[in-house]
């Protein structure tokens, strides 16, 4: 099949004595839309944070485009506290900060929208271009980078056109309606020119109509920007509609993976969501 | 909201401008209440900050002199003398704008300041404006040496430092001295330097330390002095720190003597020492009783004048700086008389030829602009009566 974009390998994230993600293994191939689902508190966002460099995993590794970008093993106090598996298999430490991960070609959105509040729609997207700028602070200050700046602005305008926010480009980001803010956050992530886009509950708080629009939108950008998409979502309609494959987390552990159809009929998944009576 | 605020700000600006305009108009009028012409003498003194207390006492001398002699004959005409007092807040950074303010008020001459650093900062402005200034109790040589328009009544740091070193070594028979100055104060550090030089020159040993600005806890410093077996602690510091050092020395049972410079000659320091087991000596320009007529007059004036009494620290003890302020005023009048004009340039030319007997001694200037002084009064704190007792007149050598 097509090439492997993201691989999470034996990743365990432990906070003190609490294991938030337990030995997670997951792969995403080029062009796929993969969803990560699970009940609240299952460790989905933690997994995202591990992949994007916000958290350093306690043990395990993350590969991106065939390259190992994150690796860690229990150290210091964690040596004693560690409850996960594969202890001692990893020896290296690779801990890039989130910005480095983004520069490698991974961009994300947030569960609770995190736009830059005092900036306009246009500037929100333009700032995301900063990580692709080649000018140094001196040339930027004295406007020796006019060409690059012009190209960036053109690209942002184009991007805003594509996502349908061009007409509100001079509005403040926070003055937009909720659905458009979500869309803007995606546009901002796209501006960082990722090959893998991570969406953390993009449909949270949306009504069914907005969700449908978003579903179409995600498909549209995947095709247009030739993206691979990894998303966390609770809206099952959306997940089932657009996902190629689905991973299910519960209490930090992977309990199922497969196509939407397979997942829909998986007993463990149903139990996880609906709960099982203890004495059953 | 924003507009309202802008309007308010604008209003404040406009009003204050108007206030300033109004004020300067009345000041420019060249005739006073009595119908006489007015000559303005600037007073450049700290009223606030570390030297605020000393500055206020110095101003008292000038105000009293102004009360005694409110007019002056210049070129055959009688002028009323008006004192223009600005607060230089002890610090050089405020000194500059205070000095500019005086220039702005079109004074013929400036008196002050207490403290050398601020005088040097002001000196830059006076020099630029060609305005003569008469330093009162600023004792750093650089005040007059680096500035053509600055003259001075006080003795200099090298003189004072040497006098105290001599006194400590020869009269008190001390061979080890502990020297303490405030970090960042050029007055303190200057005296520390000259004292150390002289004391070591005599064959003594000096342990020098400094304390950061704003210190209140001098206990460990006193302990350091004790550990060094110092016979004296020389601390040429401002009044506030002098009080705290006296207090700490008493509490820690320091058995040697405390040596202070002219700043110590204050009723506040005496207050702190009263009733405590400490010995202290200070050098100063004037000893109460040196001129009974002046003493009696100013005491009466201070007692009749509640504000003056507050500024003097709540009693009628005459500080040396008050005497020097008094002399400064009369020196200015002499210079104005000789100049025969209120023009600062004429006054500047007249100053070197001033010669008269003030309450602190004969006042004449050398070629640098410093008063010719070869003696300092040494006083000691009488901790029972709460007064300064005269010890001797000390000269160098």
């Amino acid at each position, binding site marked *: 099949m097509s090439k492997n974009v993201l691989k999470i390998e034996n990743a365990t994230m432990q906070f003190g004595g609490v294991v938030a993600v337990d030995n997670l293994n997951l792969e995403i191939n080029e062009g796929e839309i993969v969803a990560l689902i699970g009940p609240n508190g299952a460790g989905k*966002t933690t997994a995202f944070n591990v992949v994007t460099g916000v958290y350093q995993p306690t043990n395990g590794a993350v590969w991106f485009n065939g390259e190992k970008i994150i690796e860690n093993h229990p150290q210091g106090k964690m040596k004693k506290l560690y409850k996960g598996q594969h202890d001692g298999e990893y020896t290296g430490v690779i801990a890039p900060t989130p910005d480095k991960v983004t520069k490698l070609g991974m961009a994300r959105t947030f569960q609770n929208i995190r736009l830059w509040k005092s900036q306009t729609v246009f500037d929100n997207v333009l700032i995301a271009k900063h990580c692709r700028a080649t000018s140094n602070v001196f040339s930027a200050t004295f406007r020796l980078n006019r060409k690059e700046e012009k190209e960036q602005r053109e690209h942002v305008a184009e991007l805003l056109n594509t996502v349908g926010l061009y007409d509100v480009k001079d509005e403040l980001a926070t003055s937009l309606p909720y659905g458009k803010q979500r869309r803007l956050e995606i546009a901002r992530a796209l501006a960082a020119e990722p090959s893998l886009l991570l969406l953390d509950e993009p449909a949270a708080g949306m009504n069914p109509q907005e969700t449908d629009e978003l579903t179409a939108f995600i498909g549209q950008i995947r095709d247009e920007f030739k993206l691979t998409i990894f998303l966390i979502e609770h809206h099952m309609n959306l997940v089932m509609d657009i996902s190629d494959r689905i991973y299910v987390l519960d209490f930090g552990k992977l309990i199922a993976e497969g196509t939407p159809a397979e997942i829909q009929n998986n007993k463990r998944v149903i139990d996880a969501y609906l709960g099982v009576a203890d004495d059953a | 909201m924003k507009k309202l605020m802008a309007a308010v700000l604008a209003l404040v600006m406009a009003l204050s401008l108007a206030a300033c305009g109004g004020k300067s108009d009345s000041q420019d009028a060249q005739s006073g209440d009595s119908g006489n012409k007015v000559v303005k003498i600037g007073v450049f003194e700290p009223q606030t900050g*570390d030297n605020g207390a000393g500055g*206020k006492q110095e101003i008292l001398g000038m105000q009293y002199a102004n009360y005694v002699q409110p007019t002056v004959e210049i070129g055959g005409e009688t002028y009323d003398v008006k004192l223009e007092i600005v607060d230089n807040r002890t610090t050089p950074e405020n000194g500059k704008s205070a000095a500019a303010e005086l220039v702005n008020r079109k004074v013929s001459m400036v008196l002050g300041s207490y403290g050398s650093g601020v005088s040097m900062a002001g000196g830059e402005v006076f020099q630029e404006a060609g305005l003569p200034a008469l330093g009162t109790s600023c004792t750093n040589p650089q005040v007059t040496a680096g500035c053509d328009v600055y003259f001075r009544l006080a003795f200099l740091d090298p003189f004072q430092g040497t006098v105290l070193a001599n006194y400590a070594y020869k009269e008190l028979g001390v061979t080890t001295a502990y020297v303490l100055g405030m970090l960042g104060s050029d007055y303190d550090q200057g005296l520390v330097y000259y004292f150390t030089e002289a004391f070591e020159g005599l064959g003594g040993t000096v342990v020098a330390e400094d304390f950061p600005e*704003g210190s209140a806890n001098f206990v460990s410093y006193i302990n350091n002095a*004790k550990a060094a077996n110092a016979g004296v602690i020389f601390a040429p510091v401002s009044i506030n720190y002098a*009080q705290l050092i006296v*207090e700490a020395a008493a509490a820690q049972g320091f058995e040697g003597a405390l040596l202070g410079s002219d700043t110590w000659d204050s009723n506040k320091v005496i207050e702190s020492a009263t009733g405590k087991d400490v010995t202290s000596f200070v050098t100063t320009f004037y000893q109460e009783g040196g001129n009974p007529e002046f003493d009696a007059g100013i005491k009466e004036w201070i007692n009749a004048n509640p504000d003056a009494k507050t500024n003097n620290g709540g009693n009628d003890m005459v500080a040396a700086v008050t005497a020097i302020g008094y002399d400064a005023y009369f020196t200015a009048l002499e210079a104005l008389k000789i100049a025969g004009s209120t023009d600062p340039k004429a006054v500047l030319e007249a100053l070197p030829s001033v010669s008269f007997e003030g309450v602190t001694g004969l006042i004449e200037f050398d070629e640098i602009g410093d008063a010719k002084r070869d003696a300092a009064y040494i006083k000691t704190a009488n901790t029972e009566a709460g007064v300064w007792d005269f010890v001797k007149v000390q000269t160098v050598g």
Partner: protein
Amino acid sequence: MQQILPYIINGISVGGQYALIAIGYTLVYGILRLINFAHGDVFMVAGLVMVYATTALPFYVALPLVLAATVLLGFTIERVAYKPLRTAPRMSVMISAIGVSYLIQNLAFYITGGVPQPVTRPIPWISENVIILGASTKRVTLVTPILTILLVVVLVYLINHTKIGMAMRAAAKDFETAQLMGIKINAVISMTFVIGSFLAAVGSMLYFTNYPSVAITSGGMPGLKAFVAAVFGGIGSIPGAVVGAFIIGLCEELIKGAGYTTFSDAFTFAILIVVLCVKPTGLFGEKVTDKV
């Protein structure tokens, strides 16, 4: 030993004074996450009130008056300058704190005429000299640490065994949840300021008995150093603040004794920076993580 003893006695005493101020910082920071820049100035005002009150009134009236006035000041500052900014960004509150500090200093300047005020009638008994182990010192030097420990024990008891103490602990743990659980957060915060100011007033009386001159800037350095002590001990922790204060006080006096007097203040800040960089949680502080 004989040589070093006076420094140790003095250092412990200084530590006690810092401790009484540091508790004010640590309590407020624990709940509001605010460095109360005005706390040092509250301490200074207590000194000023003492100077004025003791000259005019007998001690048994003057000293309670100092306590009452300081507590009132602390309470008022919180109500006027911090409460309206409860939902504002942290920087605004901190600026407000700096503004209050500036205001208090300038008002004190206006009232005192900018001239340091000597304590002319020091509190009797504790201001007298005593000789211990051959070293002379004021009695307050010995009283300070004892009184400090006593007050801290009472305070810790209050916090662990009373309702308001429990509310304070809850608010320090999680401000919003405590509010949701029906804790009257404003009352708790006011109480924090009242306790902090009360202890600062006690500290102030001891401090200015020892060093009897109150300048408008007198609160600045002790305030900053007490804050450093609070950070050193782990901000938010009362025992931490006390231990930190004693350590800072001792170190400071020993540094002076060792002859590095030029850097006696600078040293405290060096400790601060080192602690912040190496162990920002201090000796007893708890780790706080930000949620993404």
